[in-house]
């Protein structure tokens, strides 16, 4: 992508505005990865990752397949440890505290740090309404305003208008894009402060993708979003900050460069970053 093309996109999106205002204000750090290295058994897949995620911003993690972005994002909400042989070095700080500290309950931390996956996974045995509220049921949170929560979260996810008349129908009958938005609403119902998104649009059609990107930009005003994406235009459209991951020749992956999206795409410091964002590999 040439600088001219980039500027054309950037000047017409809100990401540009957000990036500008982000640099103007001093924002508190919501989450931070400090010297994080990740292993699967003996195999080291990620090395020395240091990223700070400021509050109420969107950060995109980009890079070619297999360089550890999805694995990294799973260490942010303690899903990585479910894999046998998982190991970690370094710290993952949430509001200043290491989430891997022995005192921290992984179940509890996942309420604060939610996740949306690549393949929409609504619960097939529940209705739409049931799915939205399932997060509350599963985590044991008691709330009395269920109807309000359902409407609020579905609106925030951009799905309310389409399903408000069939809240009691099966979730499985929705299209892929609708299911993904339902999943987003479901994640929002437990009121997370951070939302992790692992390539949420890669299984969806372009129309749904744009709707979800719209949702992300809106949500970013209230919560911190970290999104893994293969789609560089998407990163430009939604992210305030971007981190570029790379793994070479079976070596562990690492972060080559990170910073405001405008800089990464418009003025990258590292040659490899330049090559990647210009589509020369990936």
């Amino acid at each position, binding site marked *: 992508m040439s600088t001219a093309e980039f500027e054309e996109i950037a000047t017409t999106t809100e990401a540009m505005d957000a990036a500008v205002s982000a640099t103007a204000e001093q924002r508190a750090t919501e989450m931070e990865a400090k*010297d994080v*290295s990740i*292993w699967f058994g003996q195999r080291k897949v990620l*090395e*020395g990752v240091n990223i700070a995620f400021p509050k109420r911003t969107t950060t995109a993690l980009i890079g070619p397949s297999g360089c550890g972005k999805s694995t990294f994002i799973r260490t942010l909400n*303690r899903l*990585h*440890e*479910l894999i*046998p*042989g*998982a*190991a*970690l*070095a*370094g710290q993952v700080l949430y509001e200043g505290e290491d989430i*891997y500290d*022995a005192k*921290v*309950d*992984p*179940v509890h931390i996942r309420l604060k740090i939610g996740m949306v996956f690549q393949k929409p996974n609504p619960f097939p045995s529940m209705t739409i309404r049931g799915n939205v509220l399932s997060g509350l049921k599963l985590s044991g949170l008691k709330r009395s305003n269920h109807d309000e929560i359902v409407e609020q979260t579905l609106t925030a996810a951009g799905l309310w208008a389409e399903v408000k008349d069939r809240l009691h129908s099966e979730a499985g009958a929705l299209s892929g894009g609708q299911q993904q938005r339902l999943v987003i609403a479901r994640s929002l119902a437990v009121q997370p402060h951070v939302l992790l998104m692992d390539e949420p649009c890669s299984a969806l059609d372009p129309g749904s993708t744009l709707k979800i990107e719209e949702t992300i930009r809106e949500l970013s005003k209230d919560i911190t979003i970290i999104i893994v994406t293969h789609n560089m235009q998407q990163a430009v459209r939604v992210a305030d900050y971007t981190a570029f991951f790379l793994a070479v020749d079976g070596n562990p992956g690492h972060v080559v460069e990170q910073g405001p999206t405008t800089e990464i795409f418009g003025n990258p410091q590292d040659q490899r970053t330049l090559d990647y964002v210009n589509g020369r590999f990936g």
Partner: protein
Amino acid sequence: MSVATEEKRDLTAAALSHRGDRVFNRIITGCAFTALVVLAGITVFLGFQAFPVLQDQGISFVTTTAWDSFGTPPVYGIAGMLWGSLLLSVIALVIAVPVSLLLSIFLVFLAPKPVSKIFTNLIDLMAAIPSVIIGLWALYILQPTSVEWATLLNKYLGWIPLFDSNGNFIGSPFTAGIVLAIMMIPIVTSVTREVLGRTPPDLINASEALGCSMWTMLRYVALPYGRGGIVGGIMLGLGRALGETIAVFFVLKLVYDVNWFHILYSGGGSVATLIVAKFGDASGSLEQQVLLAAGFFLFAMTLIVNVIANLIVARTGRVKS
């Protein structure tokens, strides 16, 4: 560039740091070991009964035949029963294995799909018929017919000791063997049909393209491919036959002496049937204990057969060339 000193932490324990999860896991793990507990329990408790009997009677318990509850000392020997169980199983195998194989070949390779589906369900229904009903049918309907066949066999082939007669054909191992075969066939067919059905279509297509006859395809492709599974299925059926009690009870006359191979003689043995037959009027706790000891041997026999069967079936899950 890696940080000079990194503390790598294994996360497996962290995954279960939620206390409720640990409790849940423990409960589920406990439940999962029920099977082991039961098996161990059977081994221990029945073995507990068998051991003193073996001590008391010596090894002759399994090598001789006797049932003298009132003698001093009482003498018991279940050799006739043990051998009888084996003999019945052999008769059943001789009948059931060819029939099951042919039946499977019909279901998998010969019958059109709708016919195959219906017949498969019918054969599976046969497996579900309770043994007491089979026994009832065998007593009233099979027995007259099998006695007729036994008479014929004896008339024309009686010069072979195998088909020798002692005057009466009712209650012979022959009939009991047929009944066991009828109960074995659905099980063996079910496994064999599944195994044959899993023969890779590529191999079958290849043999068809070469112009092979069905027999050649069976002999060189389907049967070798499924050999392990078929043997496993046969052993599973064998396990069931060894443990079959009620159906045999109706058509076999229990006799303590060993009937080595006179399948048309009236009188034979079966450990399983012995237990059911004698338990009602077991006189005194020693006789009860003897029957429990017999149960232990039955358990051991069927356990070994089943374990081997499952090992064979499991091993052939891997593809052989």
